[in-house]
């Protein structure tokens, strides 16, 4: 348990409210536009890193048209909460993404975020964009291994010092001096690996809930003492993109924002970009009308399920979850969990495995005490307490009645009524 309470309290109080400011006024955007334009000019002068493919070519290779690309650019501009006039800049930035070096390290993870980044049912623009980013190092994706891989990483870190974005996937186990996870031929622990990689990064991006909060490795009883990146890396800009897996659109969004403005997007108190995590699932859910109406799926596959009723009673945690998948969905807008008829399990929230991911309403759930592993429900506990109080009262009442009667009898005997 290395949750730094003081730190998080401070963060909560210093964070601006979760308010999503979608209109900051013309003056702001005009200035931003000019600075973005300048940045893009500067980037254009740089050569693509490591002979990365040219974006326009990759698009054509995949049989997509420029029109599709522009459509994507305008949707992405909206997602980033920029005015429509920024669309050409966003398109330019996408083309120039091969100028920004990215190093990707994997720690305690399942590579699900790498999978999300690579796979979809067909090549979509988000994926192509991620294809052309200058991924200098990615253990799982590269051919090199062992000493060779280490050498490659060291070179990349040296060469792009202070410029690269470090993407981290997976939790950081701190238990047993970090020896629950080691990497490479030298047996470097994950913690040391992370520290070393973060050292020269321009910013650190934690992708997925494990890298953000510790996620599943940190689930009760957290045997490896896993934590998220923000607990380990200090003194660097950190951007969290939680969810299980993180939505590739949000990864692209963060990189694009960086390419476009040279800065990190506006963050909430958990360091998540507001453009993605400023929304509550429940407030943008297509089943919300059924929630308000009181129409619920009572059991999987029932009449309600066939009618797309709200999934609250089968455990949807949309009301307590902040993410934009109810808006942008997954796989380039094809669908999302609630769309396919299963509830939200709060995958983008801290502690989601222990506190969100049971497919029942909270009132019927066995919530594991995160530190103990004792199963008990809130209501059972409450009812138990109530029963105890009731029994106590009953005993007291009975005793009082008996005592009162005796007293009365005594008084009668004494004849002093």
């Amino acid at each position, binding site marked *: 348990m290395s949750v730094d309470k003081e730190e998080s309290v401070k963060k909560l109080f210093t964070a601006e409210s979760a308010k999503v400011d979608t209109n900051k006024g013309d003056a702001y955007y005009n200035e931003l536009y000019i600075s973005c334009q300048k940045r893009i000019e500067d980037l254009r002068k740089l050569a693509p890193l490591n002979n990365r493919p040219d974006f326009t070519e990759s698009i054509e290779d995949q049989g997509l048209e420029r029109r599709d690309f522009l459509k994507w650019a305008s949707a992405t501009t909206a997602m980033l909460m920029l005015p429509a006039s920024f669309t050409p800049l966003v398109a330019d930035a996408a083309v120039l993404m091969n100028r920004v070096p990215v190093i990707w390290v994997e720690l305690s993870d399942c590579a699900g975020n790498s999978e999300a980044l690579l796979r979809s049912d067909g090549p979509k623009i988000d994926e192509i964009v991620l294809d052309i980013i200058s991924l200098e190092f990615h253990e799982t994706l590269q051919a090199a291994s062992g000493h060779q891989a280490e050498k490659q990483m060291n070179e990349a870190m040296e060469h792009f010092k202070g410029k690269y974005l470090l993407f981290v996937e997976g939790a950081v186990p701190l238990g047993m001096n970090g020896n629950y996870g080691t990497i490479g031929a030298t047996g470097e622990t994950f913690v040391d690996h992370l520290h070393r990689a973060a050292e020269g990064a321009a910013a650190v991006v934690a992708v997925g809930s494990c890298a953000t909060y510790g996620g599943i490795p940190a689930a009760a009883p957290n045997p490896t003492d896993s934590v998220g990146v923000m607990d380990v890396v200090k003194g660097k800009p950190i951007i969290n993109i939680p969810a299980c897996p993180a939505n590739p659109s949000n990864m692209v969004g963060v990189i694009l924002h960086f390419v476009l403005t040279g800065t990190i997007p506006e963050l909430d108190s958990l360091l998540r970009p507001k453009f993605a995590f400023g929304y509550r699932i429940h407030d943008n859910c297509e089943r919300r009308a059924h929630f308000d109406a009181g129409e619920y799926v009572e059991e999987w596959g029932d009449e309600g399920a066939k009618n797309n009723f709200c999934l609250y009673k089968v455990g949807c945690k949309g009301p307590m979850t*902040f993410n934009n998948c109810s808006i942008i969905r997954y796989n380039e807008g094809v669908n999302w969990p609630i769309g396919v008829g299963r509830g939200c399990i709060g995958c983008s929230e*801290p502690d989601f495995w222990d506190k969100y991911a049971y497919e029942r309403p909270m009132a*019927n759930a066995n919530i594991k005490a995160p530190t103990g592993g004792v199963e008990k429900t809130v209501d059972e506990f409450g009812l138990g307490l109530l029963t105890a109080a009731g029994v106590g009262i009953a005993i007291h009442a009975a005793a009082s009645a008996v005592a009162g009667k005796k007293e009365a009898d005594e008084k009668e005997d004494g004849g002093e009524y």
Partner: protein
Amino acid sequence: MSMKEGYKRVRRMTPAMRIIHWVNVFSMIVAVATGLYIAAPYYQTFMADDAVDKYVMAWNRWGHFMVAIIFDVTSIIIAYLFFFSRFEKPWRKVIPTWKNMKEFFEVFLNLVTLNRRKKFDSTHSDSFNSVYFLIFHLLLGWMLLTGLQMYVHGLASGESSIGAWWPWMLHAVTDWTQVASSWMVGSTATGANIMDVRISHHLTMWLVIVWVVFHIYYQVWRTIFWKEGDISIVIGGDKFVKTDKEA
């Protein structure tokens, strides 16, 4: 009014206090009934109706939030009266002075000795009751803060029908309950979340219910055993005390 001989009437609650009491009773019943529905909708609506015609969850939430606002306002009044009432000074009874602790203990002994021992002045609100009510108001205060924290996230745009100051203020006043709830519920992750607030809100409901059950029992018990008509304090505002005790 006819009164038993040897008794005198003592004023204990002003009309305002009694109104607040019964408003609280009503609000509490509504809050529990609707809160439990929000937690796990326990009755069904008819499939045949169109979604637009029924609004069952929405009405439950509406009711819950309405009584919540009533609780908010009465809490402010009560907090004010707690310190500044000219009628009674409850705060004087909860500070742990020697005298108060002794009285607290005596009242407690009175309860557990089943009224065999009664060595305190029951004319005025005693220390035990004052502390017990303070606990209630702390629990209610926690319900308010956690409730408003959950509520404000429904106003994600930062706007509300009464202006942007309202969600802004709610964030400023209640955001800390996330951290506090995570600490209470226990967490292995980095960062606090709103689920913990919800769990805490739900659990505190049970504490409040337990509080209410004992409260009702104890007031009735006092009425029966002390024979001073304590229960009528909350109705007519008065109780009766033996005059010989005063003498």
